[in-house]
């Protein structure tokens, strides 16, 4: 009771206008524009394209026969229609999961070999999956997002993803929605898109993968989810897990209609 009365008093006080927010935002916009001049993601794209065409693995074949959803070997525009249901695997897959599938089925890698370096770290631990993802996604640049929900499992993934988006847990009570469920917010100086809206999801989803300046690495959407959960104080999100794919489905589908615009460069 007492606390509530004080709270009312506290809430009644009017917060002063944020200082110099406008000019800070302008300067950050200039910083981002300057970075777009040259995006090191291109180095990953080039390596990924070479990997795609190289005969590799125990079976010594290329990945060019891999079906990313539009038919074997069709790369152009494939990412704009992922995740999707794949009958051969009888499950919904995102791009990274599908690449692992193709490395196993076509090239003969074991699943653990294919997943050895899902997230790269420096020169000694480069990730083939990140490079391949950079290449495949770059081939959808400018293609409108068109993620299907026609299969029952696609619909289920979407709806489960929506539930997970609101799941609060961990020591800090954080859910995806804590930071990404409102308009016009930012964390530190970084704008937070509202991922429940088409506009917000489009802005965010179509710019992953991205070269992360703070890490000096190209990062995929699987990594984006993994690292969000790390910072939410959750345990580790498993690569290619159902939760990762369901959330990706929720966000990718919400981004439908917007041209894909990655790989991008971000802080």
């Amino acid at each position, binding site marked *: 009771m*007492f606390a509530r009365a004080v709270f009312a008093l506290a809430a009644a006080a009017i*917060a002063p206008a944020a200082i110099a927010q406008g000019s800070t935002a302008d300067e950050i916009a200039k910083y981002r524009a300057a970075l777009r001049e040259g995006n090191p993601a291109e180095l990953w794209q080039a390596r990924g394209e070479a990997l795609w065409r190289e005969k590799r693995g125990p079976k010594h074949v290329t990945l060019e026969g891999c079906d990313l959803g539009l038919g074997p070997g069709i790369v152009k525009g494939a990412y704009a229609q992922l995740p999707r249901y794949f009958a051969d695997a009888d499950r919904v897959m995102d791009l990274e999961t599908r690449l692992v599938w193709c490395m196993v089925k076509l090239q003969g890698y074991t699943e653990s070999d294919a997943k050895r370096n899902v997230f790269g770290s420096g020169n000694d631990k480069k990730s083939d999956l990140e490079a391949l993802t950079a290449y495949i996604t770059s081939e959808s640049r400018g293609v409108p997002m068109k993620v299907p929900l026609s299969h029952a499992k696609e619909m289920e993934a979407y709806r*489960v993803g929506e539930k997970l988006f609101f*799941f609060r847990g961990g020591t800090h*009570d954080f859910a995806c929605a*804590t930071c990404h469920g409102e308009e016009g917010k*930012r964390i530190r100086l970084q704008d937070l898109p509202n991922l429940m809206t088409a506009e917000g999801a489009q802005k965010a989803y179509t710019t992953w993968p991205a070269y992360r300046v703070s890490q000096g690495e190209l990062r995929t959407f699987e990594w984006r989810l993994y690292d969000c*959960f790390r910072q939410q104080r959750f345990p*580790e999100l498993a690569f290619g897990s159902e939760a990762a794919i369901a959330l990706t489905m929720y966000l990718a589908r919400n981004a439908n209609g917007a041209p894909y615009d990655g790989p991008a460069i971000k802080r």
Partner: protein
Amino acid sequence: MIPSARVALFVLGAIAAGCATPVDEGEIAAKATAVIKASFKPAGQAGLDRLEQDETQRACSAAAGKALPRDIATKIEQANLATIRYPADGKFLGDWKNGEKIAQEGRGMQFSDNPSGPVGANCYACHQLSPAELSFGTIGPSLYQYGKLRGNGIEVQRYTFGKIYNSEAFTACSNMPRFGHKAILSEQQIKDVTALLLDPASPVNQ
């Protein structure tokens, strides 16, 4: 703690209220729970127990971003209010300089963090505080001149300490962590952050 029968009731109520397609909503919710359990691995200091929701987390998840009915919100707030342990010495204000460090520190309790390393409150991620820090978030309200606008009487001190200790006691389903209740910060750290907000010498109040 809230008696569990009542909790179950208000969780169910919240689900029903947010229900768009009632046919298999429960099925999807059950699937989501199973997916969560199957998709994470323990890492560092973050065990799978962190996925076990308490009553507040469960109710706020089910609300799916929509406002809770007032009676349910009140129940959450009352239950959380009961958890607050105010300082035994009756003193709410610590060292604002240390409070500033805690407000800046973003590490703590992530699986990548050293368990014996620093644990901060990361206030600047969501709030403006000292005007010298340009890099502040806007998820929460600006706290610049927090004490200057409200005064720093004992009631404001007590409220502020309590809000940091357990934010859900005052606003159900707040985005703000429950720093004391979840043992993220120590009592002394909460006092230091309270001082950052209320001490007249703090840069927040200049």
